[in-house]
């Protein structure tokens, strides 16, 4: 990991806060226009091509904890993302009766080092939900405004998939998808009986070459460990590094932005940050400030940037900054597929993540919840890791020995050893990821009683699910049980009930939180215009999920990048016309 601190450079054209999907895309596009740029990142540099940063292709025994998660890498010891739900010295608080878990990655590339590479376009309906169901607002833009940028992102980054012609699941410029794994075909037996579609997944992994800078996937299934040949998308490898090659990008790492500085007219003049290296405050100046720190972190910076011109926080005359915080819904179910016990062995790693998925397939007008969900499938003969072999105290009853007799829960000895071998690759499951309703009452604000180790006031979260999300989670579980049962699997555990909101995970857990700095045509009800430019500060822009009016039942990253590209082109135009 390297770091650099540069004291008082020249005035930059643009300062970009954050190096994730939005900040990375802005850096790439703005640097290509010849602009001088400072990218300010709270974590360290990271490059999986460097041997010292490589966790890819390591064996479980190379980790003393055998890949178990830690506070710093909750998704496993080999996971590339550094940070987690609970970062030393960087707390957040949650209001009583609320819940919210906030996942952060402190490193170049941000949370793009973690995500599942699921890269779905929002469809025409996804921009107009308020008009369709009357709950909340519609976006001030539509699919036709974003489509050209989705096309550009597809070409630049690469995404595999299949053309399906489904109205609200727009096709893109796809690379060829991989063939399904065995459990995926077996689960399809269940979905076929229920007329639920299962189509090739759409992941930003290169199954085919797109340029000479990045390699082609070699099917280790370890995208979450970061790819040493850049065959999957992460912002660091695919956006920040190419941007740096354009020559006018300075990368400031270990730099925690405290506020956006403003002048007497209320315009942005730059940022003030605390260096984690020397624990001192530093300042940078620029003509334009672009926030891409993540929906909540960018809202925090704006709310902490109060001035006489912006008494309610920067560009927050509307009072919406921090509000309409919403995450995707999520819950899942596991099962054991007896037909897959004692299966033939072959290398089934494939790409990192599922090879097939189910897009939303029903009509919400006929259901007791307003918005849909997609289904992700899992299973297969993946690499053993911490947890492999657990649970024999409840699962041995389903595992048959060589004579076809099922075992007794628990035990020890030769039979246990054989049963675990037999069981390998027979676990299957699925997860739903759904759309929630953005609400003013779900929000983050500055907690006046708490600051972090940099002296920066922290966020306090207020978030409760509504009946819409709870009903949706119940529907997910009913569906999962039927799919699993009809595909010949034995359900594990019990179906979560109303007391647990049908297994609905806490807000924040799906790591799709957006909406805190939303766009709109009415400055009284939104913080940004449709170009992600602040209504009340014309040289301030937001390129992360903060601008989202509603988060579809899709993963947000592709839309973050398409919008960041669109906003970057707008910034270039406005700068060249001297409007900002």
């Amino acid at each position, binding site marked *: 990991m390297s770091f650099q601190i540069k004291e008082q450079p020249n005035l930059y054209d643009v300062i970009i806060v954050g190096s994730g999907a939005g900040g990375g895309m802005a850096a790439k596009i703005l640097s290509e226009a010849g602009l001088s740029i400072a990218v300010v990142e709270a974590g*360290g540099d990271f490059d999986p091509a460097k041997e*010292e*940063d490589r966790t890819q*292709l390591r*064996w*479980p*025994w190379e980790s*003393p904890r*055998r890949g178990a998660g*830690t506070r*710093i890498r909750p998704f496993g010891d080999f996971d*590339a993302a*550094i940070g987690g739900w609970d970062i030393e010295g960087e707390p957040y608080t949650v209001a009583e009766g609320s819940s919210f878990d906030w996942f952060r990655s402190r490193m170049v590339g941000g949370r793009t080092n973690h995500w599942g590479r699921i890269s779905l376009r929002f469809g025409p309906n996804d921009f107009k939900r308020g008009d369709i169901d009357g709950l909340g607002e519609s976006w001030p833009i539509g699919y036709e405004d974003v489509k050209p940028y989705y*096309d550009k992102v597809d070409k630049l980054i*690469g995404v595999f998939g299949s*053309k399906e012609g489904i109205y609200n699941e727009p096709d*893109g*410029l796809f690379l*060829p*998808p*991989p*063939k399904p*794994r065995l459990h995926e*075909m077996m689960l399809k037996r269940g979905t076929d009986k229920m007329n639920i579609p299962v189509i*090739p997944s759409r992941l930003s992994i290169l*199954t*085919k*070459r*797109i340029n000479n800078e990045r390699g*082609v996937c*070699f*099917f*280790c299934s370890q995208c979450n460990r970061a790819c040493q040949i850049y065959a999957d998308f992460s912002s660091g490898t695919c956006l920040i590094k190419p941007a740096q090659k354009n020559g006018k990008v300075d990368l400031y790492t270990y730099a925690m932005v405290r506020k956006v500085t403003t002048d007497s007219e209320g315009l942005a003049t730059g940022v003030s940050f605390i260096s984690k290296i020397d624990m001192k405050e530093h300042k940078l100046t620029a003509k334009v400030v672009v926030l891409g720190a993540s929906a909540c972190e960018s809202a925090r910076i704006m709310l902490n940037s109060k001035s006489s011109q912006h008494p309610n926080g920067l560009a927050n005359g509307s009072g919406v900054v921090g509000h309409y915080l919403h995450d995707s819904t999520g819950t899942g179910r596991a099962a054991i597929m007896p*037909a*897959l016990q004692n*299966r*033939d062995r*072959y290398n089934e*790693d494939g790409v990192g993540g599922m090879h097939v998925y189910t897009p939303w397939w029903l009509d919400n007008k006929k259901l007791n919840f307003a918005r849909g969900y997609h289904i992700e499938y899992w299973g297969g*003969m993946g*690499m*053993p890791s*911490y*947890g*492999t*072999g*657990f649970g*024999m*105290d409840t699962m041995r009853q389903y595992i048959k020995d060589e004579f076809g007799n099922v075992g007794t*829960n*628990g*035990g*020890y*000895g*030769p039979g*246990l*050893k054989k049963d*675990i*071998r037999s069981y*390998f690759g027979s676990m299957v499951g699925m997860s739903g990821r759904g759309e929630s309703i953005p609400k003013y009452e779900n929000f983050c604000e500055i907690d006046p009683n708490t600051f972090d180790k940099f002296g920066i006031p922290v966020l306090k979260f207020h978030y409760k699910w509504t009946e819409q999300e709870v009903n949706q989670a119940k529907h997910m579980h009913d569906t999962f049980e039927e799919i699993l049962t009809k595909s010949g699997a034995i359900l594990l555990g019990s179906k979560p009930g109303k007391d647990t909101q049908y297994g609905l995970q806490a807000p924040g857990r799906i790591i799709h939180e957006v909406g805190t700095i939303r766009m709109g045509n009415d400055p009284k009800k939104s913080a940004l215009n449709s170009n992600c430019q602040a209504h009340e500060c014309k040289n301030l822009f937001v390129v992360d999920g903060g601008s989202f009016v509603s988060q579809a039942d899709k993963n947000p990253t592709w839309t973050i990048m398409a919008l960041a590209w669109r906003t970057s082109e707008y910034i270039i135009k406005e700068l060249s016309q001297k409007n900002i």
Partner: protein
Amino acid sequence: MDRRENLKLIMAGTLASSLVWTGCSTETKVVQAPVKAYIPPYARTDEELKILREIDEFTFFNEFELAKLNVLIDIIIPSDENSVGAKEAGVIDFLEFIMKDQPDNQTLMRGGLIWLDFTADEAFGKYFLEITSENQKQILDLIAYPDTAEPRFQNAVLFFNLLRNLTATGYFTSQAGLTYLGYRGNTPNVWNGVPQEVMEKHGVSLDSKYLEVYLKPEERDITAQWDDNGNLIT
């Protein structure tokens, strides 16, 4: 004072306080202490290295506990004609590390290991290690089958669930365990679907609709190009 002296004192204290031991000896087999924790040479932050070094600074299991564990883990995952057992696969080192890395499990583990001794004492008048392997299994059978175990052994059942879980995971994530399991991945390759004979065995087949769409291994190095309608043409 060395660890053996400590152990003697601890055991003597135990003798004096609560249990009436009959015919037992404080002599135990000396086993090799676990190797120092392995600190991976890659991709660790300063904070992670600090945690690893702190773990390395102390030893969790004493020699008496290690002696019991060496027996127990090979009872749980034994060797057979074609594969080694948990002990030879290095599971002890993993257990030592993971107890320190996940301290929430320490009390259950430690308490369970002592439970084995006083239960052996009450049943056979000796430490767990000093009874026959048949008698050891009689004690384990009290706690190894959660669905039928007597409620009064519930704590020890939870201990044995923990030990079974960690022993199994330590084994099946070791090099020997992976070989035994038959895992074939973690190596560069070209995925071209499930082998035909496996699909036939399970009665599944590829959807003909997608046969032309799926990735063709021989074309993956040709740079992608699309026509104006977004169709891949190379």
